[in-house]
């Protein structure tokens, strides 16, 4: 009730200088949003394309398997990542036990692992010649084949790998939800005669459900997007199917149609998530946040809790890092050569450029939206920022088709006109790769930029304008300095995401251009798992930085705890 200027109907003309003309900012933002949307629309367009012969063939033979495997994988990851995430979140937010403070952030560490690198590492550890089976054979004095051992390269194995790296999404959101719940709700439940277990299942869990659903749907989107793990384990899903159709059958239409179908899966997931959140929107009944009671556990229970938190950390991070380090020690003399340094330089340059481009575009869109918050621009920005939900493989197809067409048209025209070939100007160069990264990772920087801008009150803009500053000067002198922290975060997260990205890089990289992720994939495909460790370890170690950043941010934003002013 203290700012009538803000209460007035969301002032549509608030930032307009004249009624007639949209500002150059919003024109630029609109055009950019349209270009970024192209791949997504291209792929969706193929839903209405008449199927080719190959499509019929695929539908008759492997399509059923793709769908079945994708659904199975999602179910497995939902159960795996869900149970690990919820359990660890509940334990670390409600109880006190040895190592709790450490676990609060350490449980996020598996996020640093791309699933495919975890898959390579475990395959190396668990294969017949690997350390685990060798230990079994020498200890129990049995020969190969005389004992039962699970096959890691299977759909079950893929479920475990994906669950181990994706549970932090559930953990993160569930924990935030548990911490936000007022203690009063839980205390009311206790005073009404529910024990701690019943309180958990009848109060805490339902209250946290919307957040858990968000975490799960993030994990499932990543599952659908995964290419490296399922490819390596020989599990046929949509992503491997698209890859094979493109490179094995050279059928652009069928590949695009598979991609479109996969996109429908993703959209269904998004809709389900939205729907389930609408079903249950809880308002906290009190805004009095107390520090959570942090119940002290008895000796046995305390050790059980410690073990429960240690296991996912052990299997999702500590063991594989140890194994990778060991391999790296054994192989770095051969592997870390000039070629490796070129790889690293390629990867870092690519990731750095992509992060910078994504940030600039996000600033353009976010600021354009702030200057002229029209519905049209808002919708465009929302669609342009959808890329993160779309699997990299789908985006790869979505950029290759239009740019391939553009290249061919341009090339033909140049030949007719000037008698020489312009070659693959877009699709054969780094341009297309950077564009694909932009489409996929714009979401990350856009969200960060919008959140940063949202924290700056509109009166700041107006104050600057009333003192004679224009739009760009205001951005430079007020917004950018105030958002410095979030802009760095955006850069860093996109940087690491690009570094880890495999399928789009694999499909779109120019001839003879390699990155760390692609090299690790190639070496692993050649069964040279130990040799892949230097590249893999580099990716994981860089990936730890945003995890640390994330845990620091979370530690500073807990409701119910005194915030430093």
């Amino acid at each position, binding site marked *: 009730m*203290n*700012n*009538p*200027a803000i209460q*007035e*109907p*969301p*002032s*549509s*003309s*608030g*930032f*307009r*200088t*004249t*009624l*007639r003309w949209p500002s150059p900012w919003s024109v630029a933002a609109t055009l950019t949003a349209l270009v970024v949307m192209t791949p997504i629309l291209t792929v969706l367009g193929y839903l209405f394309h008449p199927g080719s012969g190959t499509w019929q063939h695929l539908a008759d033979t492997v399509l059923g398997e793709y769908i079945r495997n994708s659904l199975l994988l999602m179910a497995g990851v939902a159960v795996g990542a869900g149970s690990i995430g919820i359990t660890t979140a509940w334990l670390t937010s409600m109880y006190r036990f040895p190592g709790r403070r450490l676990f609060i952030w350490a449980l996020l560490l598996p996020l640093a692992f791309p699933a495919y690198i975890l898959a390579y590492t475990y395959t190396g550890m668990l294969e017949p010649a690997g350390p685990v089976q060798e230990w079994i054979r020498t200890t129990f004095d049995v020969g190969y084949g005389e004992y039962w051992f699970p096959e890691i390269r299977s759909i079950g194995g893929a479920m475990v790998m994906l669950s181990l790296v994706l549970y932090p999404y559930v953990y993160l959101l569930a924990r935030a939800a548990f911490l936000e719940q007022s203690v009063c709700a839980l205390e009311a439940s206790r005073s009404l005669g529910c024990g701690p277990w019943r309180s958990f299942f009848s109060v805490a869990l339902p209250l946290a459900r919307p957040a858990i659903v968000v975490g799960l749907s993030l994990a499932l989107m990543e599952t659908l997007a995964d290419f490296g793990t399922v490819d390596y384990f020989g599990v046929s899903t949509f992503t491997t199917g698209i890859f094979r159709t493109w490179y094995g059958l050279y059928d652009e239409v069928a590949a695009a149609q598979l991609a479109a179908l996969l996109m429908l899966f993703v959209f269904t997931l998004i809709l389900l998530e939205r729907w389930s959140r609408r079903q249950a929107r809880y308002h906290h009944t009190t805004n009095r946040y107390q520090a959570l009671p942090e119940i002290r556990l008895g000796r046995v229970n305390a050790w059980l809790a410690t073990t429960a938190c240690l296991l996912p950390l052990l299997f999702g991070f500590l063991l594989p890092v140890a194994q990778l380090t060991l391999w790296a020690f054994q192989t770095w003399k051969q592997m870390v050569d000039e070629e490796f340094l070129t790889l690293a330089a390629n990867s870092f340059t690519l990731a750095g450029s992509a992060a910078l481009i994504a940030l600039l575009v996000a600033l353009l869109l976010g600021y354009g939206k702030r200057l002229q918050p029209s519905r049209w621009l808002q919708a465009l920005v929302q669609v342009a920022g959808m890329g993160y939900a779309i699997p990299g493989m789908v985006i790869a197809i979505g950029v290759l088709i239009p740019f391939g067409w553009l290249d061919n048209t341009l090339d033909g025209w140049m030949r007719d006109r000037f008698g020489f070939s312009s070659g693959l100007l877009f699709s054969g160069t780094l341009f297309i790769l950077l564009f694909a990264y932009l489409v996929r990772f714009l979401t990350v920087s856009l969200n960060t930029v919008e959140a940063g801008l949202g924290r700056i*009150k509109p*009166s*700041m803009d*107006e*104050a*600057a*304008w*009333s*003192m*004679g*500053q*224009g739009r760009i*000067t205001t951005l430079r*002198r*007020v917004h950018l*300095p*105030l958002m410095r922290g979030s802009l760095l975060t955006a850069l860093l997260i996109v940087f690491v995401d690009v570094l880890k990205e495999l399928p789009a890089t694999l499909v779109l990289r120019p001839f003879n251009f390699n990155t760390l992720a692609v090299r690790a994939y190639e070496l692993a495909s050649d069964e040279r798992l130990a040799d892949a460790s230097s590249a893999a370890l580099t990716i994981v170690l860089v990936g730890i930085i945003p995890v640390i950043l994330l845990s620091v941010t979370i530690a500073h934003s807990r409701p119910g705890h005194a915030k430093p*002013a």
Partner: protein
Amino acid sequence: MQNQLEIHDLSIRLGGKSIVHQVSLTLRPGELSCLVGPSGCGKTTLLRTIAGFEQPSAGSVLLHGNRIADASHSTPPEKRGIGMVFQDLALFPHLTVAANIAFGMQGEPRPAVDQRIDELLRLVGMSAQRNCYPHQLSGGQQQRIALIRAMAPRPALLLLDEPFSSQDMERREQLVQEVRAILLEEGITAMLVTHDQHEAFAFADTIGVMSEGGLLQWDSAFNLYHRPLSRFVADFIGQGVLISARIVDGQTLQTELGKIRGELSQQLPPGSTAELLIRPDDIIHDDQSPVRARVVARLFRGASHLYTLELESGTRVLCLAPSHHNHRIGERIGIRLNLDHLVVFPC
């Protein structure tokens, strides 16, 4: 002399709703003015339109004779040279006090900027806080910095959007007077928006009362209180009640408090009924008076008592009596009217 600000028949629509209609007013150079009215009356929207954050749907705004806004054209806020102090102050948290003040003086030579900063800081007695950050200042100090930041580029007009509303009552009045003194010293033309009439009285030479998007009266504080042109202004400014009266002739009224003579605020036909505005200070407590009223409520105000009295007919009036006249609730006390200008409205 040319008017500093002229507004002609200004109407503003936002989101399809008419917020302000047909407002006209003028400000002379150096004049301090104020817009008051209940929340939602459109005063803030009017202010934001003058500043350039909204565009009018009809009418025009002229600054120093130059047309800066009408329905087809609107000079962007940064090109107007109109300063604004915001309700939430909007100090830039990443800049020091000095850098905040210097923000609007880009392009001026460094020594001139420094000199202006010193001068303004001295004016508000905050030279020591030059290198502090906004969060290190108290609320009142932040307010002063927000004020001198807006004044620093010597704007042609300074707008203040309820900047005092976050202060507590006692500090507020003192702060308003300080600000008035500073603006007078700098010779700045200013317009304040507030819902608090005491703030308006303390600040402005000219006050506009707004209601439901219209400007009802643009006048001095004295006239608003003693010569309101409408029932709304009579009711909104100061305390008072309307009691029914019958017009006897051009100078005499018959009320239940007796016959009263005086100058009528408007001529009404003899014999017609009207309503007479009675302020608490118009009723004098007089034990000799034959007119009696019963005390229904009383409010001790230190120097005075504010009594709510019930007349025979059941009409209630307010009476301001010296503090030592101490009467109990239910007691019947003598009163008489003491008025020479009679504010009447036809029924």
